[in-house]
């Protein structure tokens, strides 16, 4: 039986010639990831059970990004616990706040050239599925999984069934990868891909930028997916070659889906039929096309996060905000996803555009996305956000509301004070 990309990667890392959906396998890991919320419990388990030394100090990435810069004393203690562990274990990829290469974990791992096609990557963070955009198998796990994997260098997986997402056509103006993934989640539901891999195929892929693909894979979890994965093409190679130490010229020859790979179903998407999307509270699947609903006035806009905090996102925000001003009574908060993104915004004059437009510009952090800090919502407040979840209480008070959207809709909404497309400006 033919295999999907995901199945091939898992078989390869389990030392097998093939594997089939439902098989339970033990896979070697190429990269492990933890953050300031999920790593401290993993360290507790690691130390309590005397696991000793990590299996490979060069394959673990630890990033204090969620409640950092430390929002309170308890968060400071959690960050310190991770920092001390990284130091004692001599972890190569521990990123300190403010330093080069630092930022929101899923922005910096691709940016720093740490994820490669064909890799198996786990992270104690649900959005670890982001790196599927680069042709890796990557998925989220919990703290106990992370602790055990840091010791053993392996973990277990159930080989997933697959859904093929066949893309054709090209995106319309003001549409991006965010609209594609919201559209897909709206179509199949928040558990539409439960336990399964989302395998993207089709001629539509070539028109999508790497930023689009990273955003799409980032939210595979929001329809229950175990992972999302794109085939490797020239754009992927070009992206990796500019970022991986020593360059990157060619993906592994075996890394493609077999022609007779089995998919549970195929979802076809014509990119040209997608218009700017918004997910209403309180599920990412509650999608509506902008222009098809009554005026919704808002209180806050957040642009950034592991979903939309890349430089391309900042450029799109700046293009809409340039020479304009945020509406009275609206707080617009922009969080470049990494120090590199921040510096590039600085060099290319984007920070000035944001500040002139009346925006708050923050250091890279997950902060407001999960109601941590830097933009928590009060009772009854409404926010348009380029983040990934709009569950009850996600960004603050349980009676606040989060509307998920792409960068251009978020920026236009900040200017107009209600949810809008840039076409309305």
């Amino acid at each position, binding site marked *: 039986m033919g295999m999907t990309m995901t199945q091939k990667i898992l078989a390869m890392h389990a030392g097998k010639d093939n594997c089939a959906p439902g098989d*339970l396998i033990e896979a070697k890991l190429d990269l492990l990831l933890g953050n300031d*919320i*999920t790593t*401290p*419990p993993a360290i*507790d*388990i690691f130390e309590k*059970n005397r*696991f000793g030394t990590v299996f490979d100090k060069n394959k673990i990435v630890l990033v204090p990004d*969620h*409640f950092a810069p430390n*929002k*309170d004393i*308890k*968060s400071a203690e*959690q960050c310190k616990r991770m920092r001390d562990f990284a130091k004692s274990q001599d972890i190569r990829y521990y990123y300190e706040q403010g330093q080069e290469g630092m930022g929101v974990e899923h922005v910096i791992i691709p940016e720093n050239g740490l994820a490669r096609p064909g890799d198996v990557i786990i*992270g*104690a*963070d*649900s959005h*670890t599925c982001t790196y599927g955009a680069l042709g890796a198998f990557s998925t*989220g*796990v*919990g*703290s*106990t*999984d992370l*602790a*055990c994997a840091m*010791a*053993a260098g392996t973990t*277990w997986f*159930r080989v997933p069934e697959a859904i093929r997402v066949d893309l054709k056509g090209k995106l319309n103006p003001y549409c991006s990868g965010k609209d594609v993934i919201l559209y897909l989640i709206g179509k199949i539901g*928040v*558990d539409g891909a*439960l*336990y399964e891999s989302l395998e993207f195929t089709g001629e539509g892929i070539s028109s999508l930028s790497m930023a689009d693909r990273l955003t799409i894979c980032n939210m595979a*979890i929001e329809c*229950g997916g*175990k992972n999302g994965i794109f085939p490797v093409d020239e754009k992927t190679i070009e992206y990796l070659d500019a970022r991986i130490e020593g360059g990157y010229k060619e993906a592994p020859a075996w890394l493609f889906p077999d022609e007779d790979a089995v998919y549970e179903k195929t979802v076809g998407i014509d990119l040209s039929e997608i218009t700017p999307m918004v997910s209403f509270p309180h*599920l990412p699947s509650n999608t509506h096309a902008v222009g098809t609903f009554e005026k919704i006035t808002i209180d806050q806009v957040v642009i950034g996060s592991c979903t939309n905090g890349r430089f391309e996102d900042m450029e799109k925000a700046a293009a809409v905000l340039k020479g304009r001003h945020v509406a009275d009574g609206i707080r617009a908060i922009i969080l470049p996803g990494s120090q590199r993104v921040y510096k590039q915004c600085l060099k290319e004059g984007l920070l000035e555009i944001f500040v002139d437009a009346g925006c708050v510009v923050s250091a890279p952090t997950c902060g407001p996305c*999960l*109601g*941590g800090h830097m933009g*928590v919502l009060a009772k009854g407040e409404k926010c348009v956000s380029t983040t990934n*979840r709009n*569950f*009850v*209480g*996600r960004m603050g008070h*349980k009676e606040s509301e989060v509307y998920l959207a792409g960068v251009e809709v978020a920026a236009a909404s900040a200017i107009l004070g209600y949810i809008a497309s840039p076409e309305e400006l």
Partner: protein
Amino acid sequence: MKFSGKVIKYGSNVDTDVIIPARYLNTSVKEELAAHCMEDLDPDFKTKVEPGDIIVAGSNFGCGSSREHAPVAIKASGISCVIAPSFARIFYRNSINTGLPILECPEASEGISDGDKIEIDTDTGEIKDITTGKVYQASAFPAFISEIINSDGLVGYTKSKLK
């Protein structure tokens, strides 16, 4: 293992943000997490939950964030088991790894009402509704998962592997 208790019932897509809101994740102390378990979904949860009680919910229970704090908070609240037609996959792993018994059973999720008294046997997967007299059968764990459970969770399993 066998448990009995009253049922606390919820709908589908109960996400980890309502199980334990991120604003409380500046700690991983289980008692502190339990104090805020379910508060954005059901403010009365804390007062009505008694040791041994069972959560019966709709599909995709535990969707969202990878926070292991979610099953830890549920277990530390006194909940003995969660029954649902399906669980989000990271929550499923985290429950096995932290020792929160979970059972997949669409019929039980449909048939059992809030407040019912039920008995469950996690080894056989049998769910008995004492209030209505109905009996349900949950799907059994794959053998590999049972092996993890029998090795005292993933930590015990990993320890035996590292030897």
